[in-house]
């Protein structure tokens, strides 16, 4: 009907309960198309992380459908979803603290059968030179920014089609945040589709083509990122600007 590319990832009326009775998502529908950077912004508790966990298979939706490249993800465990090309860099980075940097990266490539992954390692070390210097260090000894880079590099080792990033800038110094967003742009140019969850709405909207605003478990606004940046209501609520 439209000339838009077909959706790579789509959520259709997804409901979720978090914990025992908190209704974290109340009918979320959204789409991510191949090649896009899509941002998902919203306040704490809006349901952003719950949504990411559902897409990755870590939580089961109470109702609704998630499809990736036309395949329904219902009932698939995380490792199967990941093997379809959908990688999540989770909130809080979650690198393996007692594994070295190299071993963390190797785990990122766990599902790949190739023996020789030197191109992938080179790519990651090219994007994040500091990881190259820390190869043998344990993941747990890295700084927060380095851990975020390792978490992203680890996800890239699998050559995902869609990379989901949950709060990549959380707790990081502004310089490091610049670097992370620069890399997100680079990765996208290389052809990886990106779904980005951020509390740092300004950065996210600058990096994304389109964005969804999540409010108490529902999509409040779906709009071009550039338009949202100028939207007075969004500026007031999420950008701290009048």
């Amino acid at each position, binding site marked *: 009907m439209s000339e838009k590319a077909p959706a790579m990832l789509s959520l259709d009326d997804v409901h979720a309960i978090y914990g025992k009775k908190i209704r974290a998502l109340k009918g979320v529908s959204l789409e991510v198309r191949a090649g896009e950077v899509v941002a998902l912004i919203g306040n704490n508790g809006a349901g952003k992380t719950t949504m990411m966990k559902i897409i990755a298979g*870590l939580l089961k939706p109470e109702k609704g459908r998630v499809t990736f490249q036309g395949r329904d993800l219902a009932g698939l*465990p995380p*490792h199967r979803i990941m093997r379809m090309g959908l*990688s999540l860099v*989770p909130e*809080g980075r979650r690198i*393996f603290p007692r594994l070295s940097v190299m071993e963390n990266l190797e*785990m990122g490539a*766990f599902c790949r059968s190739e023996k020789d992954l030197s191109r992938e390692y080179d790519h990651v070390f090219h994007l994040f030179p500091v990881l190259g210097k820390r190869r043998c260090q344990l993941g747990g000894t890295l700084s927060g920014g380095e851990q975020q880079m390792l978490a992203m590099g680890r996800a890239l080792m*699998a050559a995902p089609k869609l990379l989901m990033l949950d709060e990549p800038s959380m707790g990081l110094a502004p310089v490091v945040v610049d670097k992370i967003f620069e890399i997100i742009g680079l990765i996208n140019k290389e052809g990886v589709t990106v779904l980005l969850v951020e509390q740092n709405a300004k950065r996210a909207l600058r990096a994304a083509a389109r964005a969804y605003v999540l409010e108490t478990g529902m999509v409040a606004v779906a709009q071009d990122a550039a338009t949202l940046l100028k939207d007075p209501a969004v500026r007031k609520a999420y950008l701290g600007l009048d």
Partner: protein
Amino acid sequence: MLAQQILNALTLGAIYSLIALGYTLVYGILAMINFAHSEVLMLGAFTALGLATFAPAAFGSGPSALAAMFVAGMAAAGLVNVVVERFAYRPLRAVSRLAPLISAIGVSIVLQNGVFLWISTQSLSFPRPVVIGQISLFGASVSSLQLVILGAALGLMGLLHFFVESTKMGKAMRACADDISTAGLMGIDADRVIAVTFFVGGALGGAAGVLYGMNYGSIKYNLGFLPGAKAFTAAVLGGIGNIRGAVLGGFILGLLEVLACGYIPDGAQWRDVIAFTVLIVVLLVRPSGLLGEKMAEKV
């Protein structure tokens, strides 16, 4: 005298270490104590005995028979452990942390009584396929059997070290021990890794069962209980969940027991008391064990 004591301690410690590794590997990933592990090692010993009794001709004698007994005992113990995990623990994993623990105690009773009812209530003599002689070593006359036991145990520990540090599956095991849900995000099938862990831990227990049988010359349906409990103590002593800790704890416990036997009047009667006193003291003074680390903060 002292050299002989030390060799005794090393032999005993090696057996404890092998068993302790089975507890610690499983605990490292699931934070669960596999109380059925002592029965798994007992079944390993009975399988090896069964092989030696019913198919002696097929494996010849001497080293080849010894190897066959090891392989059979280890494979059987590993498989039993995998089956137990699949049917008695996995379905309960999501329920609570206590449920698999109680299930494990149940499995332990079932396996022990199974052997008691269907195989033998008595001690059965356990074959020693290698000729046992006395060898002079550093001025001490030692039994060649002890050297076989020590060598086999150290060899298996070396293999485990290689597996865990250098193979893809071994690294995946460590990744699961660090953070099992994130391992899933890497495309790692945690259920499969858990099954492999139970197999490896069970196989080491099976090897310990065979070594135990050879060391004492006889096996019985309840043979796993005491060494199992002591090896568990050793794992806690070293820091449960920590592989090096399990080995260290096993050898320390072996040494303490043997020295107590040798140097305390009537020490032999106290040897079991020593192990569990050590457990209590360690739990009081250093609950995380000698090499135990506080779990890394997962922010």
